[in-house]
């Protein structure tokens, strides 16, 4: 497997096929006398902004906290939870049970209160 080509930036879906985001960061463990190995991926605006630059990571985190979307802005998923890696990464997680779904739930509450959003 090629980390950059097959993991980084690939779409991540939960066990029900619900989109969770993209593999915004890959966490690699460096070991003595052994090759480095991938131990997890990170998903979320916090992870993505931190990858782009330390300063942008700080500002995005501050902004999300300020508007009440701070929860679940960076979610780590271990490779042991990977079910399949094809053109997307399927993980053994239910999106609805994660902190990252908080933003989705808050926005859904607003969107569904607008007429026409349920049809």
């Amino acid at each position, binding site marked *: 497997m090629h980390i950059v080509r097959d993991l980084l930036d690939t779409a991540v879906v939960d066990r029900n096929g619900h989109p969770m985001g993209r593999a915004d960061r890959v966490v690699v463990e460096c070991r003595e006398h052994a090759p480095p190995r991938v131990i997890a991926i990170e998903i979320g605006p916090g992870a993505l902004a931190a990858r782009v630059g330390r300063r942008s990571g700080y500002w995005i985190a501050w902004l999300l906290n300020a508007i009440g979307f701070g929860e679940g802005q960076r979610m780590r998923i271990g490779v042991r939870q990977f079910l399949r890696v094809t053109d997307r990464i399927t993980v053994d997680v239910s999106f609805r049970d994660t902190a990252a779904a908080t933003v989705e739930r808050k926005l859904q509450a607003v969107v*569904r209160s607008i007429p026409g959003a349920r049809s």
Partner: protein
Amino acid sequence: MGVLADLALGVVTSIGGFVEAGSISTSAQAGAEFGFELLWAVAIAGAMLAMLTEMSGRLAIMSRRSLAAAIRERFGIHFHLVPLTAELVLDLLLLTAELGGAAIAITLLTGIDFRWWIVPIAVLVWAVLWVSGFAVIEDGIGLLGLVTLAFVVAALKMGPNVHDLARGFVPSLPGHHAVRYAFLVVSIIGATVSPYLLNFYSSGTLEEGMTRKVLWANTATTYAGNMFGTGVSMGVLITSAMVLHPGGVEIQSFDTAARMFAPVFGPWATTLFALALGVGCVGAALEITLNMGYLLAQVFGWSWGANRPRGDHARFSCAFTIVLVIAAAVAAIGFDPLRLTTLAVALTVVIMPLMVLPFLVLMNDTKFVKDRTNSSVGNAALALLTVLGALFALVVIPLEILGGG
């Protein structure tokens, strides 16, 4: 039979959805200032758009990804931030111009200042997007847009000289105002090959669930639809050339452009022009708004789609709502929609290589398009046209702004 009916509908809607504020204003200006001389630029721009939309459909069918998603996956976020930011800024500018164009159309009918119509039009666009599925949005735009065939009817009724028309298809050096001529070439290409169309088309292909079995339908729809659509743009140019060019009229506003219909449609001229402009602009505003929602959702990996209740894709629904609010707020300030359109379409050509070159890499990557890679001739032609176009635009735009030529 079902596929053939879909194909026919696809072609018809492509014709109806082809012209909007950018293509109407640039073709009308080209005809009024240079007669038939710039017909070749419209033809080349139409051919480029046909090639690019066919590719974006093929990419979506073969990879099951939209263009934006594929660029993020292939090139990573560090690279993607550049074309993504450029496209978001440009789409916002174009959306503002389309809202302004639609507002001007109502002003032509009512005489009430266009700024009063910006918010009602934005609300209309949002309401359509909020309650309609993708097919309703796409087919509705296309079928209502058939009113733009009025430009073709007008051109035919004016009876242009076939020999003069044929000469317009041969690229030539202008006899006067060389910088303006070059600027209009850039603007025609920018107005036709809008980057939003590529991601919108690939997303639409996924929304409609097109499969490898109907790759031929994708090719047929894009080439036939764009060919006939280009005919409508040519209708604008020809009518403008025959009506406005002899009097030396320069188009400074959409009201002046409306005069091109007077000899053919008499008392209905303004109404018909306003309808064509309004429907074209609202259609483009719907597509751009939806595309910005698609773009953000696909890049960040959110759930998206216009065929599910809006509450099911809350982040996508909020994203397109927010960009529409921003565009409406900017448009309501009262920028001249014609100037804004001119600026947006010229800038499109400058940033086009940022969109097209990575796209061409994808179209030759077997991970994405498998055995349906591009031909080397198509790659070379598109790469050359976009790079030369951008360099040309970088020279011409400052000269035009400085009033050279």
